[in-house]
Every structure is written in C-alpha cells, then in structure tokens.
C-alpha cells in the first residue's frame, strides 16, 4: 500500500472498512500493559487457534485486495486492542457486535468463549462484570463506562492497535488529508485557537496560541515534539493512547507540522513504556510505508519525519526544557527562560511541545470543527480529560470524562465509591505536583480554572483516592519522597529544600517530630514555591502545603501526641493490654517474637513498649480483645 494521492487514501479507506464490515464477529482482546501483564496475549493466540481449529475464517490482519487476496466474507476478526481502561477487571475481552465485555478472562475460558459467544450468540454470565448483584452484559452499560465520554480514547479497545489498516478502516488519516488538501496552515491555526484546546500535560496553556507563536517565527527549521514522559505515580493516560491508538498521536503531530511549517517530529517516551515504544515504532514504520510519513505525504510537497527518543526515567524530563535537552543528548535539566521553547526549543529552534493527550485531540478538532469541540465541557476548559483513577476506590482504571465533571461524579459514579464501604477522606489530584481535595471539595467542577482557585491543579490527570485509613502526613511524605528523588539537583531550593522537607516528614511519621516542624515545613515550602527554577520545583511542596491546610490536626497529633489518627503510621502505634479484659491466658506471650510481654498466668499481662517492635502479633492472637492498638 503506497498512498501517493488523496484518491488512493480514499480508495484504501473504503477497502479496509468494507473488509471490517464484512467480519461477522470481532473479538477484541485488550493488549494494554495491564492486561498483557495478566496474560492477554496468550488469550489472543489461543482464541485465534481455537477459531481456526473450528474451520472458521479467522482474520488477524486485513488483506490488501489489490494484492490478489480475497475479501473475507462472514469471517471472525481477532484483534489486539488498546487499553479499555477497566484495568481492575483485566484481562478484558470484548465481542462485537453486541458490545459484550468479558472480565478477568483466563486461558481456560477461551474455549467456552469461542464456542458460545464467538461462534454462537450465547452470553456467558460467569465472565460478565457484576455490581451490586446486577450482571452487565454490554460494556457501555457498565456504570464505569456509562458516565464517560470518550474522545481521545474512543478507539482504545475498539480497533487493533497494531495495524494501520484497522486505523484506516475507521477513517484514519482523514484529518491529515483535510489539513493538507482543504485547509491552509493559517486556517488550521485559526481552528485550533478557536477550539481553545488547552494543554493536557498540566499547565493548561492553549495549544492554538502555542502553535501560532511557533508558526510566526522566521527561523526556517522548526520541530514538533511530543512529551510522552508521563511520570506521575499511578498515571497512565498517555501510555494508553500511545499503546492503543498510536496513529492518532502521529496524526496530531503531522497536523502540527503542517500548521507550523515543521518537518520533523520527536516523540519522547519514557523507557519504562516498552510496549508504547514498540507500538509507536510499528506505527511509524507502517505510516512511512503507506506514504503518510516521510517525503511528499499523500503526493503533496509536505514532508514530515518522525523520530522516537526514549527517556531514561527522570521525572524532570517531562519539563519542556529538560526534555529537549535530553533529546539533544545533554543532561536532563531545566534551563532558565526566556527564551521559551516556542522561540528556542529543541536544537535551539522554534518548537511545538505538547503532550500525548493534547496531540490526540487534534485530529477530531480538524475533522469535526472547533464548534463541536467547544460543545463539550465548560467554555474556558473545553473538551474531555482522561484520568487515571487509583487508590481506595472500587473501580480503578483509565477514564475519560468531559471537563467540568465533578469529583463526586468521578469517585462515586464512575469509580463506584470507596472500597470496602469506608469513608472518603481525600483525593490527591495532579500527582506529586498537585494538592489534595477533601469532602468539601467534592462538588468542584474539574477544570483548569476552578481547581487553581482551591490551590490544586488538574495536572496530567492522576487521581489517587484515599479513605479514612490513609494518614495524610504519610501521603505527604510519599509524594515528597518521590519529588526529592526526582529533583534534578540544579537549583538550591528544590535540591536542598525538598531533601530537608522529606527529612522533617520522615521524622514526624516516625514519631520524632519536633515542635516547630509544621512551621519549618511551611517556611521551606514558601521558599521553594517562590524561588525554584522550574515547574517541578515550584510545585514540589504542594502536597505538603495542602495536607497541612486540610489536616493540620493530623500533623499535630503525630508531633505532640505521637499518635497517628488514621492508625497508619506503624512506628506510632502503641500496643497495650487492658487489664480488665485480660484473662492471663499467656497466648500473647507465646505470639510475641521479642519477649516484650510479661506477667503471671491468670493475672493481667503487661507489654514493655521499649521492647515492642509493633508487629501486631499479640493483637491478632488475643481471643478476648484485651490487646489494644492505638
């Protein structure tokens, strides 16, 4: 397949969609990182061989009719799809038509699935998703999916992520076609500005504005760079797009090149995403072979080459100037600005730098128009946002909702509420750079501006939900530990300040907090926030500041009373024996590994807390609830 013209693209899109339509059944096995880890690729192979064993025409790859292959009529399509988002329930298998979703599928279930659902039309209840006793047959009916609106993730889980033919079958590269043949670069820029698409990497800077600034630079060499260095703990929105719909990202970047006059694109992906790297490499190779990347795209004068750079795992390389330095082969450290990336970015040339999710929005805006895009979500933050939902919540996974959805809707409707019926306590939004939101904030609409007002940020989209058993000092310590480890070490406040904040937090959770530690933390936080060189440093103290603001009493309890109200900080737990309840059975004495419990049989026993290692063995061994934890 070599698409040398607009007509050729059109012809092949028709051809492939006809072939896909001809498939009687489609079996989509999730091949996102989570399900792959759960063995989904084995399931994929198994289903193919089972279908073939039954003598049914099994289509793994769409055929080029032109090359003499026959169109498969009434065949079964078996596909490796992108991440469905419901990782909690993986490995996932979706069967179309019908939209059946099977969860937690095992290798031994394959035979039954092929037999009953693929070859027959029977639904296997056993493999369905169940919530509150209700069996959900169709994926779209499941509450987790029902509330979502998928724009950037629309293809994830619905097409084969490893085939450009599948992407073309659903009208792929139509946006590039439109941008090349029906629009002038200025019109693309106008459309992007009009759409008010804001950067999904955390800052929320309008993409259109950025592109316009790059386009007007007189320097002839420009670059389009995609930030795929998604580093927030627990966040995997960008990974899912790169793995599940890589061509969509390529398309967004090519359009960026057309609009700004750049001819080279760089995708910076963290090396911890090997699957994303291999899917992207495959996608680039396919697009090059099809004439959709490289010289004279679709027969026009426009040339665009795509490169992949793997990051070595430094969080700071998600910062624009550190990222470009890293691509250039230099140490990944942010530099002072100005000049800004739009003026002097990669190799000192004007550079468009957006993250994966942002680029993935572009093709749809080109195809459906800015007006359509602005109809989703609030005016100042239009569109949807993908979030990675993790923590003490029933449904963890990847979701996409319109901007402006409230936290309550996300946690209790999409997320299915707090796990184990516990109380909601807080949610950390924006990863290590963000803050925590509490019960009072549940009805805040999630968009760039309203979160800023409460001192939080949308960040790249990580949502870590915490219940009543989470210690907020420990949460702050966890994030500070992350930031401290990931500081590049360049500027003093971030390098030295985060180290000292971590030191203080560590001693507080270990029960060695001192008077004045809260004030010292806030003083350090103020200095770091006001003086650090880059965004990572400036926001490094946010988790601490917001937990102190919302849960100051927890800090005080740790420092003054040496107690962890959530009962989470092991070193602060004190075990004692209630003499009124103790029967003197000596069970606990035998359970204690360090001989910290003494006493005479039939008399109340005593725990020597200086010897106690807080293992909790006495607590679990006592039959009379006489051992107290607190």
């Amino acid at each position, binding site marked *: 397949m070599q698409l040398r013209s607009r007509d050729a693209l059109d012809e092949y899109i028709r051809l492939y969609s006809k072939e896909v339509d001809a498939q009687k059944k489609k079996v989509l096995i999730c091949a996102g990182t989570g399900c792959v880890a759960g063995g989904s690729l084995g399931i994929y192979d198994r289903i193919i061989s089972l279908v073939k064993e039954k003598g049914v025409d099994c289509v793994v790859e769409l055929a080029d009719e032109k090359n003499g292959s026959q169109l498969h009529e009434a065949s079964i399509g078996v596909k490796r799809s992108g991440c469905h988002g419901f990782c909690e329930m993986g490995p996932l298998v979706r069967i179309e038509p019908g939209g059946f979703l099977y969860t937690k599928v095992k290798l031994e279930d394959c035979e039954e699935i092929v037999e009953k659902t693929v070859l027959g039309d029977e639904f296997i209840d056993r493999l369905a998703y169940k919530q509150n006793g209700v069996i959900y047959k169709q994926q779209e009916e499941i509450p987790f999916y029902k509330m979502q609106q998928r724009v950037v993730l629309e293809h994830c889980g619905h097409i084969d992520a490893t085939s450009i033919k599948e992407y073309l079958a659903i009208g792929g590269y139509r946006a590039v076609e439109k941008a090349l043949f029906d629009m002038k670069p200025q019109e693309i820029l106008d459309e992007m500005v009009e759409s008010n698409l804001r950067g999904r990497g955390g800052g929320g800077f309008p993409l259109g504005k950025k592109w316009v600034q790059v386009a007007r630079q007189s320097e002839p060499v420009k670059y389009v760079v995609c930030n795929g260095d998604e580093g927030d703990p627990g966040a995997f929105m960008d990974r899912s797009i790169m793995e599940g719909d890589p061509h969509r990202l390529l398309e967004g970047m090519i359009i960026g090149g057309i609009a700004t006059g750049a001819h080279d694109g760089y995708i910076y992906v963290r090396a911890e995403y090997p699957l994303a790297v291999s899917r992207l490499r495959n996608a680039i190779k396919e697009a090059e072979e099809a004439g959709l990347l490289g010289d004279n795209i679709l027969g026009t004068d426009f040339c665009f080459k795509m490169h992949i750079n793997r990051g070595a795992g*430094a969080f*700071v390389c998600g910062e624009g100037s550190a990222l470009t330095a890293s691509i250039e082969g230099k*140490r990944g*450290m942010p*530099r*002072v*600005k*100005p000049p800004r990336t739009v003026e002097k970015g990669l190799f000192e040339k004007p550079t468009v730098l957006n993250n994966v999710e942002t680029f993935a929005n572009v093709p749809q805006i080109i195809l459906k128009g800015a007006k359509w895009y602005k109809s989703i979500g609030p005016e100042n933050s239009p569109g949807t946002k993908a979030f990675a939902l993790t923590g003490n919540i029933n449904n963890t996974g990847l979701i996409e909702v319109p901007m402006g959805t409230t936290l309550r809707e996300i946690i209790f409707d999409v997320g299915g509420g707090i796990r184990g019926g516990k109380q909601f306590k807080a949610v950390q939004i924006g990863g290590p750079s963000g803050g925590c939101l509490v019960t009072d904030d549940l009805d805040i609409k999630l968009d760039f501006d309203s979160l800023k007002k409460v001192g939080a940020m949308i960040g790249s989209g990580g949502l870590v939900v915490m219940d009543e058993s989470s210690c907020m000092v420990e949460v702050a310590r966890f994030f500070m530990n992350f930031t*401290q*480890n*990931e*500081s*590049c*070490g*360049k*500027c*003093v*406040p971030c*390098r*030295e*300040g*985060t*180290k*000292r904040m971590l*030191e203080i937090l560590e001693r507080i959770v270990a029960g060695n907090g001192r008077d004045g530690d809260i004030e*010292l933390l806030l*003083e*350090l936080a*103020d*200095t770091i926030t*006001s*003086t*650090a*060189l880059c965004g990572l440093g400036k926001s490094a103290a946010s988790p601490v500041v917001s937990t102190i603001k919302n849960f100051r009493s927890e800090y005080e309890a740790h420092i003054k009373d040496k107690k962890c109200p959530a009962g989470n900080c092991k070193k602060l737990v004190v075990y004692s024996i209630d003499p009124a309840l103790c029967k003197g059975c000596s069970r606990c004495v035998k359970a204690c590994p360090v001989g910290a419990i003494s006493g005479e049989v039939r008399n109340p026993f005593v725990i020597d807390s200086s010897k106690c290692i807080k293992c909790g063995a006495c607590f679990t061994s006592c039959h009379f609830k006489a051992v107290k934890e607190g």
Partner: protein
Amino acid sequence: MNNNFMIIDGSPVPIEGEKNLLELIRKAGIEMPTFCYYSELSVYGACRMCMVENKWGGMEAACSTPPKAGMEIKTNTPRLRKYRKMILELLLANHCRDCTTCDKNGKCKLQELATRFDVHRVRFDNPKSEPLIDDSSLSITRDANKCILCGDCVRMCNEIQNVGAIDFAFRGSNMKVACAFNKPIAESNCVGCGQCAAVCPTAAIVIKDDAHLLWQQLNDNDTLAIAQVAPAVRVAVAKEFGYKGENVMGKITACLHRIGFDLVFDTATGADMTVMEEANEFLERLENGGPFPMFTSCCPAWVKYAENEYPELLPNISTCRSPMQMFAPVIHEQYKNCGKKVLSVAVMPCTAKKFEAARDEFKDENGKPYVDIVITTQELIKMIKQAGIVFEDIEPEAIDLPFGTMTGSGVIFGVTGGVMEAVIRRVSDDKSISALRNLAFEGVRGFGDIREFELPLKDRTLKVAAVNGLGNVAKIVERIKSGEHFDLIEVMACPNGCIGGAGQPFASTHEKHKRGENLYKADKLCTLKFSEENPLMKELYSGMLKGREHELLHVNYVK
C-alpha cells in the same frame, strides 16, 4: 530621559543594552547576591539568590530576566530576605563548615553572603561535616563537601576552556561535580589550567598548595635557594596588600630575599631566550616551508590540551621550552657545581606550571626536575603575609646577578599577544619605534578572543593570530582544518593570558585588563625593547649555551 528605563527600588535606571536585570541592578549601584552568575559564562540560574520582587509580588531571577521598559522591581524586601536566608541556611546545612581552618576563610562567597544576610543558625542536620578530598592533581585540590553545585567550574571548563574534564553526575541531593566515570581528576583530561578554581565561590576547588613544602626547604645553610618570578606576577600582587602600586617587581624581589631566597631572577630573562629561539625556529620554518601554522609553546595547559585533543598538531607546536623551562636549566648549569644543594623555585601566575615542572621532559641528568617547586602568585602572597612582611614598607630591590637584565619583550609575555609581539619584534625588518607602535596597535594587543592580522615580512605577507581561552583554540583549529592558512598562532589557555592565570588572586575582567596595561607600561619603561639587545643573551649564547641550545632550550612533545 527617554522611556527606555525601569524602576529599581524606586529609582529610575536607564536600560542601555543590558542582557539581564542583574547587570542593570549592578549598574544602579546595588551588589546583588549570587553564586552562579558570571558575565562571561552562560546564565545558569541555579542559586536563586538574585531573585527580585516585581510590583505584583511575583518573584523573578534577575540573572535570567531581560529588562523591560517600565518594569518595576525591588531588590530587598522582607520576602526576599527571608528566601535568601533560607537558601543560605540550606547551603550551609550541606556544606563542610570548618571555616576557621579552610583555605578560603575570609575569601569564601558562601561565608560572605551568610554573614551579610545574618544567617546565625542552621536548623538542619549536616551530613557533610568532614572534608572529602581529591588531591590527585598537581594543579588543583577538590573538596566535594564544600561544593555548593553552582556549576561555575563546570561551565568554565566546558564553555570557556572547552576541556570538559568535569560535569554534573547523579541527580537531586546526590548530585555532584565529577569527572567521567567518577575517576580522580588526575585521571581525566584536565589540563591543569585551574580556571575552575578561579571561579569557585567556596573552597570546593582550590589551587594546590605547595607553600608549606617550600617553607620546609628554605633557610637551610646547605641549600642555595633560587627563585624566578614570571612577568604576570608583578602586576597582580599590590592590590592584595591594599597597596597602590602597579608593577611591584622590586618589592617582590625584596620579599623573596626576606623570605629566604638567596637569589631572585626574573623569568622575563628566560622569556628573552624564548624569543631568540622561537624567532629562529619561525624563520627556519619559513625557509623550509613549515609545518604551519607554528603554535607557541609557552603555555603548559595549551600543550597538554593539544596532547589530549589534537595530537596530530604536536609537530606544529614550537619545540621551544617555556621561559620557565628555558631559564631553569640555565640556572642549573650555572650553579650545579656551587657546592650546595640547589633549590630551584618558580613563582608563577599559573597552576599548570606545577604540572609542567613535574614532566619527564624537564629533568636534569640525575632525573631531578629542573624546577623543584612552583608556587603561584596566591601562595607567594600568603607566604609574604606568613613571614610578617609589611608590604607597603619594604624597599624594592634589584634582580640578582648574573641574570639581572631583561627586556620589554620578555615582560609582555604575561599578557595575551605578548609572545607573538616579542617574536615579531625580533623577526621584523623595520625596528624603528614607530614601526613597533604600529605593530602594537594593528591587532596584536587587546583582549579579544582571537585577534588575527596580516604581517608584512620581507617579500611576503604572513597571517598570524593570538588566541586566548582554550575554547577559542577549537574554533581556530576548525578553520585550519577547513583549509585556512596561518603562519604563526600564539595560544594562551587562560582568558586574557597569564595575567588571568588561575594562580593569580581573584580579579574581575576589568581588573585583569588593567594588569595587562600595566605590563605594557613596564615594557614602555624598559630601555631595552628587543630580546637580542639583552647583553646577557650574547654572553649566554657565546658561553654556556654554545652548541647546547637544543639540549637545554628545546623539547619535543610526542604523544
């Protein structure tokens, strides 16, 4: 006043092409605290001490913010003071604080700013209270636990000197300045120029101290202690004693006698020999057709750099030894049978000379180095202070015989372009004063990175250039490799030449230029302008050096 000004601490300050707020604030007479800003290095923006507050309460680093007309900033607000104190406290908390016994005590930027901002306590535990020394180099000593990671040394080594011996390694609070593979500096491609030490605000990199070795060997009746003093030293000493003198060679001579040297000579005399030899070699090359360009060989850091980076150019480097290494064998020959142990010491503006003195090429028939100890200008100043000499009061003394004469040609060796000018004086046909003056102002003099010009000689026109700063060498070598022709190139590793050597006391660029001008003044005051006019030359060449020029005055650097 036009509209192109901004308000700094309430006063209007005109913007006159300043690249950043910090330069403008300095112009307004305010000394901004900073560890990592040097106008000659790229803006790094890491210490965050130069933050200023704008009228909306926003914080901006002055070093990296371009001035804008109408901008209003404050440089000293309660918030800024609080942040600066905290930054200093954080730095001190991670810094070996044995100030009283530290080399940089009283000269340390961290100490100075901590005092200035009233940092009286450090509320954090100090994990780096002991020194962590790398003394593998003959030129510099590093103490990682005194490093504040301002990156000045890294940028100096990479940007100005293009050596790249050191860089940052590891990240976050584990970050440190290190050589490749974390090896000791002596095993790196360090050329010993010491410019890293010259910009280090603390004692994380200091020049190797050999003064204590010297003290042990002075004032011994069985030892004949001989010192030679390099040209650049005489113009860099006075200021350290708060003395208003320009060229204090006479006082230095007197101090060295007082310290315990039996004989004090002037390396400018050695430089005269270098002029004789180098001019001859150049004329010979002109006759024999090369190899060109001929590079000067006086600078040991340059020689080392060429050995590391451009071994193919070694045949182009003049075979002449440096003035120190020409003079030292002559001194050796003169006194080897004096019946005493000879202690040959060189006082140099240079840290690389310490390394040069130890090279195998420069050892006598018994395998002993011709120069036993090299001390830098800084060590000399320290020794004068240790000896209790009141510099202001000491009477100048003359250079000792028999090597008591030198010419202006030798004296200007201390400034970039000086070696070249002296050689041109020697080879040029027209030796009139007006011709010399023309030559001086046609391009040889000045402090530009690469100064090139055409020199008419007999029936041809020669292309010559003077380069200072090793980073500029790479530029000119690139041009040579792409086919450009040069006949003679003078290279000095340190910016501005030896007057800006790392062994000199810390000085601003302006002060370094002043030193250069003072060397030219000293040349002006010399009755003898041409090396060949030095009566000593005639005496030496017809006596001790006769037939031994190559043995004593030349060297072949081979990789």
